[in-house]
């Protein structure tokens, strides 16, 4: 990669250098800076990119190479784009005089296919920072510094601090997030609507809130969710199910520290059935006045309890192969 970019800057020195020679570095900077003032970041094409990044330059260029077209399905590009625009806009507006001598540009794949090819880029987005080669802030190497989005889309502040780190002793205009009026208004409307609705519906809602069975159900369901590893799914973003490599579906993840989304739901359901039969045996069955019904219910719930517990043990044994205990019928 590094080699390629070096090659690229070498070629830039050669062929398009004649093109760049038309304008001095100062002219180029003024041109693009005024463009940026009207709409930052500057939208670049192939030639504009080459012109802007040609050496010698006494200014810094930050270019986001992205692929916004929906054909490429670049989720990350679309997530990062608003953050990038916010960063570029607040930087440029905070530095109208161009004291930081930085130009923000965006090069979309559809406009700059050749640049992507010459850089050998396989992925997008990539943020390139071209340091100045001459002038007071000149860097040792003219190679661009590359920012990889390895850990997903970054917030504008993180990228801002990265850029600021590479531009020492220059002003770093802070990020100004615009106030999201729409969001405030919609929150206010929704909130007041909710309050009105609850005020109107209060006489109907109150019995539900005061109903003990409802609370019991809510409590038990949340307990079952938490104890069956729902928070693990939430934090780790585990897949719902996975293939077993032979075209089928594998419901249970291998290994003690892994699980799938569906797996936890199966386990939660089994805990639920077990708890339900426990509740029935402890509360409902002794309250049945008819001996026959009671006998049937007792047999049914007791049987379900036994079979499901046996199944649970066998599933656990599958997760933890050394586990020695089991109950019939799932031995």
């Amino acid at each position, binding site marked *: 990669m590094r080699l390629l970019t070096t090659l690229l800057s070498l070629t830039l020195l050669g062929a398009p250098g004649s093109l760049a020679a038309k304008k001095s570095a100062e002219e180029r900077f003024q041109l693009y800076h005024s463009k940026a003032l009207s709409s930052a970041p500057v939208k670049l094409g192939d030639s504009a990119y080459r012109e802007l990044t040609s050496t*010698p330059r006494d200014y810094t260029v930050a270019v986001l190479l992205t692929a916004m077209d929906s054909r490429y399905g670049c989720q990350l590009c679309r997530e990062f784009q608003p953050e990038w625009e916010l960063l570029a806009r607040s930087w440029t507006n905070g530095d109208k005089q161009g004291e930081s001598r930085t130009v923000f540009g965006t090069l979309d794949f559809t406009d700059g296919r050749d640049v992507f090819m010459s850089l050998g880029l396989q992925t997008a987005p990539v943020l390139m920072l071209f340091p100045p*080669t001459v002038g007071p802030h000149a860097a040792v190497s003219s190679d661009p510094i590359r920012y*990889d989005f*390895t850990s997903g889309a970054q917030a504008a502040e993180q990228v801002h601090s990265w850029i600021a*780190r590479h531009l020492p002793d220059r002003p770093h205009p802070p990020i100004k997030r615009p106030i999201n009026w729409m969001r405030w208004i919609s929150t206010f409307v929704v909130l007041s609507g909710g309050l009105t609705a609850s005020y109107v519906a209060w006489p109907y809602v109150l019995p539900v809130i005061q109903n*003990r*069975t409802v609370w*019991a159900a809510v*409590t*038990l369901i*949340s*307990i*079952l969710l*938490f*104890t*069956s*590893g*729902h*928070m*693990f799914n*939430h*934090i*780790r973003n585990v897949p719902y199910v996975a293939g077993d490599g032979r075209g089928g579906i594998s419901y249970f993840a291998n290994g*003690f*520290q892994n*699980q799938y989304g569906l*797996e936890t739901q199966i*386990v939660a359901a*089994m*805990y*639920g059935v*077990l*708890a339900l039969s*426990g*509740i029935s*045996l*402890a*509360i*409902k*069955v*002794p*309250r*049945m*006045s008819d*001996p026959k019904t*009671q*006998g049937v219910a*007792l*047999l049914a719930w*007791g049987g379900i*309890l*036994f079979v499901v517990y046996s199944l*649970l043990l066998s599933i*656990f044994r599958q*997760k*933890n192969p*050394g586990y*020695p*205990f089991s*109950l019939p019928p799932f031995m």
Partner: protein
Amino acid sequence: MSADPLQGLASVGKGQSTRSLLRVIILALIAGAAISSRLFSVIRFESIIHEFDPWFNFRATKYLVANGFYNFWDWFDDRTWHPLGRVTGGTLYPGLMVTSGVIYHALRALTIPVDIRNICVLLAPGFSGLTAWAAYLLTNEMTPSSSAGLLAALFMGIAPGYISRSVAGSYDNEAIAIFLLVFTFYLWIKALKQGSMLWGALCALFYGYMVASWGGYAFITCLLPLHAFVLICMGRYGTRLYVAYTTWYALGTLASMQIPFVGFLPVKTSEHMPALGIFGFLQLLAFLDYVRSAIPSRQFQTFLWLFAGGTFGLGLLGLVIATSAGFIAPWSGRFYSLWDTGYAKIHIPIIASVSEHQPTAWPAFFFDLNMLIWLFPVGVYLCFQQLADEHVFIVVYALFGSYFAGVMVRLMLTLTPVVCVAAAMAVSALLDTYLSAKSPEPQEAQAAESSEGKKATKSGLRSTSKPVVGVYGLWGKSMMVSALAVYLLVFVLHCTWVTSNAYSSPSVVLASRMPDGSQHIIDDYREAYQWLRQNTHEDAKIMSWWDYGYQIGGMADRPTLVDNNTWNNTHIATVGKAMSSREEVSYPIMRQHEVDYVLVVFGGLLGYSGDDINKFLWMVRIAEGIWPDEVSERAFFTPRGEYRVDGEATETMKNSLMYKMSYYNYNNLFPPGQAVDRMRGARLPEVGPTLNTLEEAFTSENWIIRIYKVKDLDNLGRDHASAAAFDRGHKKKKVTKKRGPRVLRVD
């Protein structure tokens, strides 16, 4: 005396005193079982302190016993965190050490000479017996059935979720903290039920003890106000609640502020704010109550709610403003990671790196609680039947505890008590129903139902609106009882198996099986620490990853750079940077920190998974957090995104100090080109790494621990690379300028 021996036998257990005696005997037996099931490691290995943190606690206890309490309180430890040192007396929870110190001195006063190490090793099992007793007391407050308490004690005694942190040798804060947790809850329920200031004060006393023992006291600090708040919302405010809560809060907060480590946190940090807020809220309620008694009015109820709600809202607003303005500290990192689950991973790699801070997968729940996990909801449901104040507590605790246990593996510990209590209530309800010898008569039952059925009960659960009849058939009873007996038996077997297999390894000493089935002890850690103790200068500074800091301090008695008390992230990142950089970068860092020896753990020969190469990425990440320009995690992955150690490893990886130290000379063990890392299953390059600034000082029997000595500056003023090259017999390269084609500079 009765003439018939059979009748005499049957009447035993009827009298009040016989029952109490039986109960005491059963509890004593349960405590015995709880203690003995924690002794696997002592019997298998020896009486030894386990793992990492206990080594620090042990060292601190020895200091306390040797130097007395006041010196311990003012202890400044200059042998850790070199060169910073640590104000140990002010940055630890002293409860554990003081407890064992008191036991030690008490035994000495009784002229029983016991080694302090044995007290430390056996403290956790001893307290587990007390925990079982506390669980018995707590459960007896919940249900009139006396068998429930005994079952809860049994469950608490042997549940692996609690054993995991309290086996013999696991001398950690949790060893006594779980007893204090359960006992504080018992006292709180007692205080709340009786509205008694005495019980409230006792509750505060044990709360203070808990604060002195474990950082997990915040769990109590949040749970009791939550319980009080739920009770208020249910319209159950009364003088009992007022007396119990205010007594506990006022005294308990004062007690907690006596611990230097806690200090003014109870009035500053957000996790203590609910307790303070509810305290203020209760004062308002009490005031309004008084006003109501003075001015009778019909609309007072509405006024009360509006006034109270408004004040609460204002208080919340004030809290938010004070937090955002910085008057009070924001959520501490560990606590914050409980709520915003993505927070730790992004912002605090040091917290995310600890394995016990990971979320809990479902097998862990089943592993630690077995059948209790599905009996738990049954017990919680039973609490909804009566829903007295104490049952509300169980419900709130169950929800709160299961959420936190799901987020963090180690908080399974705080969930276990409520699971045991609830499950014991469920099992005892089942046993009480199906063990009673009386069978109802069908006609009577139906008559009773028809008469009672008309009285529709308004409150309560729908399922309990009918009266209890009982179970008719003997076959049904015997079937259920035998099934329950089988489940309980499986539970006991499970607990024993888990304890024996998973939780009884000291991790300082490893065990493996020989081909003939006999046990082979791998004792590399102690071998290496002993080597350090015997062969290095007393003040030789040892650099290692922070996991081993406490062990080096405790076993080798040498100063360390970083240890398991991870209070200074920058210092840890410095060590991470030294480990993950090239030698030329690391050497100045080590010189600046006066490092004499570097210790790494290497599992490649034995296939030991807990070694430093596996932890290496965390070092890189933590270092990258401080020096993003100099250390980059990306550079340790191949272009295809793999973390490799073999020939395909990246240059950064191969040049890092950690890699070099781990694999230095390793290929000499094998025939040329055959060196294999058994842990990662990787074939290593034929030429091993070279080390210029370090020399190998010691490698343990199974190569688990490798110690390197940092070379002094070269006598002739050469840099280390050329000095080492000279020693290896390479000729000094002639310094010649590379003559490429001349290039005209145009800029």
